[in-house]
């Protein structure tokens, strides 16, 4: 089964949003709300943003050749799926500001296949802590291996960690970009991009080779939230984009999950606030699976118990005594501390984080 070409109206709409990119940028700087703008019809949008150029924009909009635009998408090696297509993701279609066209990199059949499975969005801070990265990777791995599709934005930090985890376990993952779907953003994640494109799917509402505008990130977040019935926030500061994603998900009536952090950590402010407002506690992939599939559907995989003599050291590392010296401070003899750290690392229960400290591995 091959994809039908996106319809003329949807292609026009898609190109209109792209053409208006600088106008949207300006409007947002003036404090206008993105969801309201993207929910407008073509003519309203031109009228609202065009100003003195409205006439010229309307003319260009009418003159656009959808055939040429479609050919451009195909030439970039992308597939396109429009809102009128029955296979357009149903959860996304319900929102009034859903993108007209989704451009897909990778095997085009894979997006509907991935979205036919239960899905969860995993998002969080770019500058994440070792703890956050560890949890996000483990979530991605645990969800993907359970057949759940992991949706995220391929940003630095938590997003990439979630994708990386999912790729380690089957590759059930979708990256939603704020640039064109053929243009890895950030560029430093080109390798991750290639892996996701190979094993999962990369999508974007923007045309090929389109750069990432500032407004495109919150716009991208609405797609992430719209695609998934559950959005999990791993780490986020108080004014993080991840909280925007969670807010959109809430507006759409979707479930929100948050990974608790230490109350003293600035990165835990976002998730802890969500938890206070009633979000689900996510301690690991099991909690997410419980939310998506119902509690007790699958047996929890038992982890081999830690050898008795290492138990107290593992607990101490989990409490933030994350180096040999810190353990000595907690009353361990140096030789015991060194021995315990080394054994725990070899057992895979703790890991080296950037900076050389240890972090309890979440699995």
């Amino acid at each position, binding site marked *: 089964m091959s994809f039908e070409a996106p319809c003329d109206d949807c292609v026009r709409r898609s190109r209109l949003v792209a053409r208006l990119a600088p106008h949207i940028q300006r409007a947002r700087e003036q404090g206008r709300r993105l969801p309201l703008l993207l929910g407008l019809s073509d003519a309203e949008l031109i009228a609202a943003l065009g100003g003195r150029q409205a006439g010229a924009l309307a003319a260009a909009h009418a003159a656009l050749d959808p055939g040429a635009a479609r050919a451009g998408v195909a030439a970039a090696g992308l597939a396109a799926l429009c809102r009128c297509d029955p296979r357009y993701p149903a959860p996304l279609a319900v929102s009034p500001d859903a993108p007209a066209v989704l451009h897909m990199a990778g095997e085009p059949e894979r997006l509907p296949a991935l979205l036919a499975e239960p899905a969860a969005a995993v998002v969080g801070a770019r500058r994440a802590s*070792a703890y956050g990265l560890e949890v996000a990777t483990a979530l991605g791995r645990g969800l993907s291996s359970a057949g759940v599709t992991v949706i995220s934005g391929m940003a630095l930090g938590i997003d990439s960690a979630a994708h990386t985890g999912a790729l380690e376990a089957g590759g059930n993952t979708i990256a939603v970009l704020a640039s064109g779907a053929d243009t890895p953003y950030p560029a430093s994640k080109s390798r991750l991009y290639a892996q996701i494109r190979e094993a999962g799917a990369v999508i974007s509402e923007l045309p090929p080779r389109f750069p990432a505008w500032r407004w495109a990130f919150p716009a991208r977040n609405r797609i992430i939230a719209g695609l998934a019935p559950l959005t999990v926030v791993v780490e986020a500061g108080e004014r993080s984009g991840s909280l925007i994603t969670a807010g959109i998900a809430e507006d759409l009536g979707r479930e929100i999950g948050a990974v608790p952090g230490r109350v003293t*950590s600035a990165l835990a402010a976002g998730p802890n606030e969500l938890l206070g407002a009633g979000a689900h506690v996510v301690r690991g992939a099991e909690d997410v699976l419980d939310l998506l599939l119902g509690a007790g559907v699958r047996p929890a995989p038992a982890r081999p118990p830690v050898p008795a003599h290492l138990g107290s050291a593992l607990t101490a590392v989990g409490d933030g005594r994350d180096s040999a010296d810190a353990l000595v401070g907690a009353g361990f003899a140096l030789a015991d501390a060194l*021995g315990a750290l*080394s054994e725990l690392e070899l057992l895979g229960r703790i890991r*080296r984080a950037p*900076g050389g400290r240890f972090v309890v591995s979440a699995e």
Partner: protein
Amino acid sequence: MLARVATFALDGLEARRVWCEVDIRPGLPAFGIVGLGDKAVREARERVRAAIQNQGYEFPMRRITANLAPAYLRKVGPSFDLPLALGVLAASGQVPGEALDAWAVFGELSLGGELRGSRGTLLVAEGVRAAGLRGLVLARERGGEAALVGGVEVAGAETLREAAEVLAGTTEPSPPPPRDHAVAEALGAPDLAEVRGQAGAIRALTVAAAGGHNLLLSGPPGTGKTMLARRLPSVLPPLTDAEALEVTRIHSLAGLRTGGGLVSRRPFRAPHHAISAAGLVGGGALPSPGEISLAHRGVLFLDELAEFPRPSLEALRQPLEDGFLTVVRAQRALRFPAAVTLVAATNPCPCGYAGSERCRCTEADHARYRRKLSGPLLDRLDLCVTVERPHPDALAAPPVTSSAAVRAEVAAARERGAARCGEDMPVQADARDLLADAYRGSRISARGHARVLRVAWTLADLAGRDRVEAAHVREALLYRDWISDPVAVAV
């Protein structure tokens, strides 16, 4: 009339005999010096003329030609002033020429005729002994240093006139000052007893000292990396006499010695990261020892390793491997000893707070920094250790240990290591399995494998065991290079 005075020129770490020949003949008054001297040698004309006159001698108003032979050897520095002046005096009959046959002379002159010490006195005294001369006339302040070489008569003099009188036999050479055995130097040396907390890092220092391993200290700014590194010399065994002589020779050449006596403390050198490659390993037209040679038998400390330019670090590789380095110049190759324990310190990331809330670096910053560190030197660093801010409790607690206690541990382990005579230590079966597992699980690279094993030997030596046990391998694995090792770093 012709006179000939023996002196010495420094050529790397060797002193070569130079004949200072002075010929005086009728002609227009002139004073020329030939024999491949540098600017300081050319300027000696003015100092020698003034010194001779100010000491009450007569400067001959005739044509004077001085030659420093052999002519192919480059002569550098002001130490040829005294031989030139004595040559002029002998050639003009003011000093008996035959008196100069048995002595070498060496030193700089002031315009008033006072003698000043010059670099490399120890090397020159050794040269005097090798040449079979009776003794050396030099500035009195350097007498102690020259007297370290036995079998050479050392005549210290304050002035040109005193030097001339010693040679003529009219004044007895004054004995060199008593050997001050640099006790004062050992006092006030930094000690581990001043350190609070840091048990993990001190353990790493112990291992580094016991096995001669190079060490990388990584940690946020202000946690005590430099403070710990400064204390490494204090846990190394004291210098043997032979080692002390080697060190003194280099320091003498570099002009670092002001007092007499042997260097008694292991050197600690901490060059700034703006240093050039030549400054680090030695160089110059007349090659002089670099920081790594000045740290010979001691500790070379590179703070902010990531800031050092790559060529400088690249230049360190060969001497770190061989324990000496060769500086090649057009005429010849010179060898400088460079057996050091290298300690490097680095922040874990550009801002220094990687892994903690305070870190302001992006993932890309981390990756870039890691690439920078993973450069030429990291594979020479056997031990990678994190240094953390000590816990407030640890600041109030008594020190973990003292330098004397660690020194005893280190000495015992070194003895056991030396008794192995370079043979491999047997590895117990469970330890071997552990290492194989770590390798198979790609926790360590092939290069890391060899390093872990080497460190495990030292740990076994420290524990007083004659075979490597599992616990030793486990601890050694903790010290592996997790910076350039991507499998060890989460995401």
